[in-house]
């Protein structure tokens, strides 16, 4: 009979054979039978926030969802408070909740326990709540008299506009299309980003007092010099509007060989033709994979969980959207990729979804030649199987075949359209900027979004936020400070105390004794949020039971029913589910009021702070006269908030 079950211990003071001598200098607490350290409270950034390009205070709004962080205003719903916290970093939660590949979930420390927290799902829920309940963004700041031109009304441009308005600067958006939204509207199809939702979210930003100039293309209708004269700063957010064509014979000049960006643009403007029957889409990008792997690296995560938004995991986003749109039009689409997809589990889900909608994904296939008919239009694409040697495809002999197609779409990369504004081009189709998104070599010019590097929606929004801050500093005195290492929104204890009217007493600048008890200071708290991300091995994960993640339902449409169906596929969480997801959050790096330290302290030295003085992050305190430095509280703290210190 087997009696020894292999149970994973998550609290191991020593590896077998190791002693305190093997610990890091920082961790050395004991000298034989006495200790010279006591607990201090150290705030660090969790990897979800650390990997979010828009810099959401994710832990913050999840603690609002779980009910721990209560709204400071009587009668405010938690959703509204969470919406305020979300929009402090990103003004489009409903959109993000639908299309963001969520690198936060890849980096989530809970991956190492059971499954990541459904951060994206909660974001969608709150975004939808805000839309249905007509919540507003924070009001614009006091007018500074400055005026900034934003070129491009896409996510980067709108985000920059939002943050600049919050700071009180005047904003004018120049948009070459007839509606705002950029790739959110013209790149991503309506069944992923419903137009009414877009209108509501974008409308909020516009309502903050932005001047909008639609159907105005800079370079054609307006010249750069005019902008430089009339505005104090210029932010370029023109996106990557040009698609790369296939580098094969007979591509150029063939009318029915187009690139994905063009196609989506036409599609979303309602200009699709009905005569097309067979389409081949060539797509091979891995934007999403690289984002996920960066997030996992930040969080030291080894376990991979099934992704909620598998689009873009293997096949380029654009390609996926293209194929999806085609499917719904009843057009048979074949999607090809240079990379093999059979062995990637993430791709299973994507492939199944696609197949269900009538799209056939073929991996390890490379395009060779466009086969043209007599009228000069393409009739098919010659392909063959291939293997990848790094980034170069190596054709496999004898596997050539022709796929019939009357429309061939290439979705293999994008770059900027610099017609009329060639001065901004860095020669490769993009704009060069520094870390703060100032354009290199051009004073007063800033840039963000796909024009720097085609990437995610959330990345563009993050650029807008940082650029707005940089522009603000530039307008003030021309000096732009170095960005912090972890450049996201952080929990700020002083702000939190202020919000709850529990600020420390003002210091009266006289000589005092007994400063360890003084109430003009916050004691034994260290804020390392802007410098350090807390990895999962600093948490006491044994505290968490296995709780399944609340999954969003998907409406599965089969085969022929796909035709003409442009409804959203994802069904949002309910309020209860969103709150339960909030409770799954492990609150890495900040106290989440579990009482473990109070329960386990053998000396009764750790106590709960009086309700009248307590706030988030000031929930427990230590009586240092009773503490023996045994570090049990630091061991059992599930969030890694307690660290032993004070003794050096």
């Amino acid at each position, binding site marked *: 009979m087997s*009696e020894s079950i292999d149970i994973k211990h998550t609290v191991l003071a*020593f590896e077998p054979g190791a002693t*305190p001598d093997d610990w890091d200098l920082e961790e050395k607490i*004991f000298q*034989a039978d*006495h200790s010279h350290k006591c607990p201090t409270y150290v705030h660090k950034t969790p990897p979800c926030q650390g990997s979010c390009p828009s810099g959401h205070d994710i832990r913050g709004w999840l603690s609002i969802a779980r009910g721990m962080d209560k709204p400071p205003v009587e009668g405010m719903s938690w959703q509204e408070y969470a919406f305020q916290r979300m929009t402090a970093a990103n003004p489009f939660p409903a959109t993000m909740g639908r299309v963001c590949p969520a690198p936060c979930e890849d980096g989530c420390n809970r991956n190492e326990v059971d499954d990541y927290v459904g951060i994206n799902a909660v974001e969608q829920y709150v975004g939808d709540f805000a839309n249905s309940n007509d919540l507003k963004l924070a009001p614009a700041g006091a007018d500074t008299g400055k005026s900034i031109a934003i070129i491009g009304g896409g996510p980067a441009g709108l985000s920059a506009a939002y943050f600049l308005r919050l700071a009180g600067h005047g904003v004018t958006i120049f948009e070459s299309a007839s509606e705002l939204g950029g790739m959110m509207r013209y790149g991503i199809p309506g069944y992923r980003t419903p137009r009414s939702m877009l209108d509501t979210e974008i409308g909020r930003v516009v309502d903050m007092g932005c001047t909008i100039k639609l159907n105005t293309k800079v370079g054609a209708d307006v010249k750069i010099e005019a902008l430089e004269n009339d505005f104090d700063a210029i932010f370029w957010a023109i996106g990557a509007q040009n698609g790369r064509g296939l580098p094969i014979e007979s591509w150029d000049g063939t009318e029915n060989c187009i690139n994905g960006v063009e196609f989506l643009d036409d599609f979303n403007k309602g200009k699709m033709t009905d005569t097309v029957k067979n389409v081949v889409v060539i797509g091979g990008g891995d934007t999403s994979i690289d984002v996920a792997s960066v997030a996992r690296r930040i969080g030291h995560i080894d376990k991979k969980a099934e992704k909620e938004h598998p689009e873009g995991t293997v096949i380029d986003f654009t390609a996926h959207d293209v194929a999806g749109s085609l499917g719904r039009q009843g057009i048979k689409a074949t999607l090809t990729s240079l990379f093999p997809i059979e062995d990637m589990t993430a791709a299973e889900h994507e492939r199944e979804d696609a197949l269900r909608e009538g799209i056939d994904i073929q991996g390890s296939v490379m395009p060779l030649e466009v086969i043209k008919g007599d009228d000069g239009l393409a009739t098919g694409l010659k392909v063959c199987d291939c293997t990848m040697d790094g980034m170069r495809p190596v054709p496999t002999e004898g596997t050539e075949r022709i796929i019939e197609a009357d429309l061939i779409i290439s979705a293999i990369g994008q770059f900027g359209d610099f017609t009329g504004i060639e001065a901004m081009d860095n020669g490769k189709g993009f704009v060069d900027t520094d870390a703060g998104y100032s354009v290199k070599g051009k004073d007063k010019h800033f840039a963000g979004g796909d024009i720097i590097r085609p990437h995610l929606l959330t990345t563009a929004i993050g650029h807008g936020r940082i650029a707005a801050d940089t522009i603000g500093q530039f307008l003030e005195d021309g000096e732009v400070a170095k960005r912090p290492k972890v450049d996201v929104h952080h929990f700020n204890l002083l702000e939190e105390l202020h919000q709850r009217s529990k600020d420390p007493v003002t210091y009266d600048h006289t000589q005092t004794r007994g400063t360890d008890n003084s109430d003009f200071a916050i004691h034994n708290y260290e804020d390392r949020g802007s410098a350090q991300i807390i990895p999962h091995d600093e948490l006491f994960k044994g505290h968490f039971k296995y709780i399944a993640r609340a999954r969003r339902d998907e409406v599965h449409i089969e085969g022929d029913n796909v035709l003409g169906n442009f409804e959203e596929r994802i069904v949002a969480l309910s309020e209860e589910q969103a709150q339960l997801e909030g409770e799954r959050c492990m609150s890495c790096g900040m106290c989440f009021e579990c009482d473990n330290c109070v329960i386990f302290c*053998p000396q009764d030295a750790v106590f709960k702070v009086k309700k009248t003085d307590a706030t988030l992050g000031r929930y427990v305190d230590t009586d240092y006269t009773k503490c023996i430095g*045994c570090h*049990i509280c630091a*061991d059992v703290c599930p969030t890694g908030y307690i660290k032993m210190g004070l003794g050096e």
Partner: protein
Amino acid sequence: MSDVSLKEAYIDKTRRDFLKKAGAGVTTLALASGVTLMAYPEPALARKQEEMVDPSQRWGLLIDVNKCTEDCDACVTACSVENGWKLDGNPAVDAQWIRKLKIKNPRSGHEQTFPVMCQHCAKPPCVDVCPTGASFKRADGIVLVDKHICIGCRYCMMACPYKARSFVHEPLEEQKSHAPRGKGTVESCTLCVHRVDRGDKPACVEKCASDGHGALIFGDLNDDNSEISKRIATYATKQIRADLGLDTGVRYQNL
């Protein structure tokens, strides 16, 4: 005074030699086939005092619950005499080396009593959590507290599933020289390591046998020829809370 202790050492040595010879003598008598006398001192027990602990050995106990009666606590008394502790009648702070437990099957009404002491697990949770490394497992499987570095935090007491450990709250006097114990440290059953190291059995085992019950058996679990290994191979035995996967060195028969 020093002469006395030296003499004792010599006496110990010669007594052991004498017993060895006596044991050898016993086994030359004709016996029914298949019967093994437990009297023969097992070679594994006799280790020289200057030698290090043998890591190929693993000490364990086998307790036959059927031989344990409710009114007998000879093992507990023996342990308290051997190691110099006593119960003060206050369960919250009393010393805990070995105690008798009584369980009752709620359906059938069947009752059993048996002693529980430190289970000397192969994967001891007390060792895992000890912040200083004072709680440790010796190479031969005995789990001990190194009171020189114990800081008295009681984390091991929290972690032990068998509540085998206790904390000394009061200053102590007149400790046994072979079992030092003091205020501010945690203590538990040591499997009478001072006896084991000179080749004897733990006090509880010895007393139970001399009282005629023979409910406890001590031996080397890694030695297939030892009495305890043979018994475990023959009869069904179990560990308490085997589901925790700690691989205890103490096993129970007929529990």
